[in-house]
């Protein structure tokens, strides 16, 4: 019987032994460093065990269906039938954030316990829910609670009956996937909260950090709980906001400020694609809730436009690409390491980046076969691409960041190839061992105050707990048998092999997958060997190193153990089944509509295969969202389909191959870094161009900077100059023109009109003066002019009358 390790606060009624590792001399304003001594059996260890017991108790209570509170026992079915339980989980972090922001400083211990308790309570409730759904053990379990958020109606003609055109219902959808995500989020968040108590102890803005963590947890929970695409988008961006705030927590550093801006903008690029996808679905189906969309898509809302359905699916996937840092938009995740390590652990390893995978999981029915292939390709390529870069990254957090990108690629690839359950399962397992790795690296950095692996080495003796927990996680991520990582990765690889069976297009993806697995094993063990084993490379850092206090070590232990145990019991495969593909039904509709339609509908990858449920999960049409009636109905367990030979064959082959590849990776890493037989420097020199290529991360950042950021800035400067010069210029020109025109009018008026008046006087005067010259008094001149006048007149008269003859006369000569 799987027992799940949960750590956190009992459900409210327990003595509020808050914050594990709270030692005697509490640090009030958190100004001075806290000293936690890892000596022996300390109260911290005790509280951890207490926490685990409390978690187990919540879980078992959930399973049994009633909570024994002394005499009264509360029927835990209410957890799902009414939205209150999930609303409490959702709103506790929000309240904590509100309290933290406004009263953080005034509270004792700067209020870190407020948010920790809030998340812990959320964890407790989630564990109960988990226990409950395992108790119910129905893979089609689902509860929807809804209310009207915005409803606009339009009238066909004035005064007519109103027809609702735009209705945004806001509600909660709880099914197995949701509860699992709830557990992941709350568990990792609680552990990170506890961890941060130690890690961020001496930070001046200690209380604000917890406020931001609470905001993040609230938005992540909202994202997981909401039942419609519109709310999903809203929480999607809120998660982006909180990652923005947390990445840029130490905003004095310019690199942190740039990283936070970059993260938000790159996420926003993905969000635009997602928003367009949502709009397309809304336009075609008129619905926003998941159930509504699946129902109308299945009923042929997209008519014959299968291409549009694929496009909408891919657009929606763009959101996942942005958020889960898939290939083109992965550039923000490595820079996001600027944030404090607990942030990286929580957001950039376990929860937020998993949102993309959750989106693909949740919207799985609407993805057409082509869309799924595209998704598989994206995932596969990202997996191998990120793995290659991680090979020669020297910053411990960068290695983990790229390994996260690679593992996300795995999940997306799995989902794309039809490995729905295993893909999602990989998310579950990855959350734990990647969080453990990050927190481990955090305690390493905390100890040696540097992130560069080349200055580490031989920390095994100094930090045993960190070493062992990170080793366990590394084993899990490398896919060593009996670890949770192995089960989930092997599951994906098996399904992939099977899917590639039918869809030859997927073969390269398979190669990517196995190569990725090998590389992952190699660079993860490279990390372990460089940091923990061998000789310490930086002497003074090594002396200074010490095991981190219990408040940081406890989460490591829990996560390390989960890395091994979280896959046991096969309960996950029971609960999570691939939903009936609405897109397949839509294709059938389209085929039927086309004249002379072929009966055989194109198969979604791995659809017919037994990996998916054999019979359709009847998506109820339209009416599903009435009030909060449960819509679940029992169905045969999907995961244990009749064993088809090919599936079994594929899985066994995958198992052999994955073990082989993992072993190869570990061996190679062992010989190069532990035994130093192969000198990595020599290899790097041999393949210098490849090495440089990988070191510079394929120059993608620079590429985007050159092609997008710089042109955008120059265009904006051009626009602004254009605006000032041309448009303003035109206006000023117009202003000038009127000015000139008025001057002209003024002078004209003065000169000409006045002039006319004065002019006549002047003319007369001058004429008079001129004429007076004639009156010389001398007779002769008078006579001369008289005669001259005579001559001119007669001559002129003659000329005028005989003009023609004269001309003719002259021309004749």
């Amino acid at each position: 019987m799987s027992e799940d390790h949960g750590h956190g606060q009992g459900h409210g009624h327990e003595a509020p032994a808050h914050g594990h590792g709270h030692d005697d001399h509490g640090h009030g304003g958190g100004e001075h460093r806290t000293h936690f001594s890892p000596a022996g059996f300390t109260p911290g260890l005790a509280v951890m065990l207490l926490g685990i017991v409390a978690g187990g108790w919540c879980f078992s209570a959930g399973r049994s269906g009633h909570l024994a509170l002394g005499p009264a026992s509360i029927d835990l079915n209410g957890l799902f039938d009414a939205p209150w339980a999930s609303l409490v989980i959702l709103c506790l972090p929000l309240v904590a954030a509100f309290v933290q922001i406004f009263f953080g400083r005034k509270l004792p211990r700067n209020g870190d316990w407020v948010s920790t308790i809030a998340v812990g309570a959320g964890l407790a409730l989630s564990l109960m829910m988990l226990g409950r759904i395992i108790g119910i053990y129905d893979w089609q379990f689902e509860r929807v609670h809804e209310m009207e958020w915005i409803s606009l109606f339009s009238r066909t003609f004035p005064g007519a009956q109103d027809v609702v055109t735009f209705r945004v219902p806001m509600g909660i959808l709880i099914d197995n996937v949701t509860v699992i995500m709830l557990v992941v989020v709350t568990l990792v968040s609680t552990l990170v909260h506890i961890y941060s108590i130690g890690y961020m102890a001496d930070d001046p803005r200690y209380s604000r950090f917890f406020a931001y963590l609470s905001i993040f947890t609230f938005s992540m929970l909202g994202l997981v709980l909401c039942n419609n695409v519109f709310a999903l988008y809203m929480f999607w961006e809120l998660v982006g906001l909180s990652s923005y705030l947390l990445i840029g927590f130490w905003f004095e550093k310019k690199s942190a400020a740039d990283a936070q801006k970059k993260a938000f903008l790159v996420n926003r690029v993905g969000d635009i694609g997602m928003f367009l996808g949502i709009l397309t679905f809304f336009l075609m189906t008129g619905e926003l809730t998941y159930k509504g969309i699946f129902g109308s898509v299945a009923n042929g809302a997209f008519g014959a436009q299968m291409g549009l359905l694929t496009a909408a699916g891919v657009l929606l996937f763009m959101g996942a690409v942005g958020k889960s840092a898939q290939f083109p938009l992965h550039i923000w995740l490595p820079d996001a390491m600027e944030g404090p390590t607990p942030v990286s652990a929580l957001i950039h390893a376990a929860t937020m980046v998993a949102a993309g995978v959750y989106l693909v999981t949740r919207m799985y029915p609407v993805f057409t076969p082509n869309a799924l292939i595209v998704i598989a390709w994206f995932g596969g390529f990202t997996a191998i691409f990120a793995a290659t870069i991680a090979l020669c990254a020297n910053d411990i957090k960068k290695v983990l960041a790229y390994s996260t990108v690679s593992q996300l690629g795995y999940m997306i690839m799995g989902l794309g190839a039809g490995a729905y359950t295993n893909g999602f399962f990989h998310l579950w397992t990855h959350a734990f061992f990647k969080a453990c790795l990050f927190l481990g690296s955090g305690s390493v950095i905390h100890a040696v105050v540097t992130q560069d692996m080349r200055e580490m080495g031989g920390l095994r003796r100094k930090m045993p707990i960190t070493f062992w927990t990170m080793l366990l996680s590394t084993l899990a991520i490398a896919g060593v048998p009996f670890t949770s990582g192995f089960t989930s990765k092997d599951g994906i690889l098996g399904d992939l092999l099977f899917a590639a069976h039918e869809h030859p297009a997927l073969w390269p993806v398979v190669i990517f997958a196995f190569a990725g697995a090998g590389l992952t094993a190699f660079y993860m063990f490279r990390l372990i060997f460089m940091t923990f084993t061998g000789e310490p490379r930086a002497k003074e850092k090594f002396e200074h190193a010490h095991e981190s206090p219990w408040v940081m070590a406890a989460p490591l232990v829990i996560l390390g153990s989960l890395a091994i145990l979280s896959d046991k019991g096969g309960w996950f495969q029971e609960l999570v089944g691939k939903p009936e593909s609405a897109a397949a039904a839509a294709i059938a509709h389209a085929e039927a509509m086309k004249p002379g339609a072929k009966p055989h509908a194109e198969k979604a990858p791995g659809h017919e295969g037994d990996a998916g449920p054999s019979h359709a999960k009847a998506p109820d049409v339209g009416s599903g969202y009435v009030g909060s009636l449960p819509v679940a109905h029992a169905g045969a367990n999907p995961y244990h389909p009749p064993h088809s030979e090919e599936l079994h064959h594929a899985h066994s082959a995958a198992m052999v191959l994955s073990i082989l590849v993992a072993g190869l990776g570990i061996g190679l890493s062992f010989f190069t870094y532990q035994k130093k037989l192969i000198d990595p420097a020599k290899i790097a020199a041999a393949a210098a161009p490849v090495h440089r290529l990988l070191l510079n991360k394929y120059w993608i950042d620079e590429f985007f900077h050159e092609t997008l950021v710089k042109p955008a800035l120059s265009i904006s400067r051009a626009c602004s100059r254009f605006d000032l010069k041309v448009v303003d210029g035109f206006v000023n020109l117009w202003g000038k023109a009127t000015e000139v025109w008025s001057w002209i009018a003024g002078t004209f008026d003065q000169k000409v009109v006045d002039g006319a008046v004065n002019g006549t006087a002047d003319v007369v005067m001058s004429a008079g003066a001129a004429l007076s010259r004639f009156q010389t008094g001398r007779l002769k001149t008078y006579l001369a002019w008289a005669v001259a006048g005579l001559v001119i007149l007669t001559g002129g008269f003659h000329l005028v009358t005989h003009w023609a003859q004269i001309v003719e006369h002259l021309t004749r000569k």
Partner: protein
Amino acid sequence: MMPVASLEWFLMIAAFLFACGIYTILTRKNAVSVLMGVELVLNSANINLVAFARFVKPAASLGPQSVPIPMESGAAAVIYGAPWASGHVFAAFVIILAAAEAAVALGIILGIYRSMGGVDVDEVSALKG
């Protein structure tokens, strides 16, 4: 009997005289020669008048416009001259006027001579505007 020379001859001679007269007036500084020039001009006019009276068909008869002269016989006897006679009458008048004009002109010239000591036409420009 037919006149000896045709009308054009006389008109050409008159025109020449007129030109000489104009030339004399324009170029002579002495008032008296100016006077001579005037006389030449008048003469040329006379030639024209007489020549036209002689050669050209008179436009209007000296008929009814003339004033009836009361005769003792009680009946107003109306005397008409020959239509061409007007030319000669004009010539006569011109001669009469020329005489009067010469007399007065010389009076003036003498006055000027006495007051200005000379009869240079250019100096006599008291009326200059």
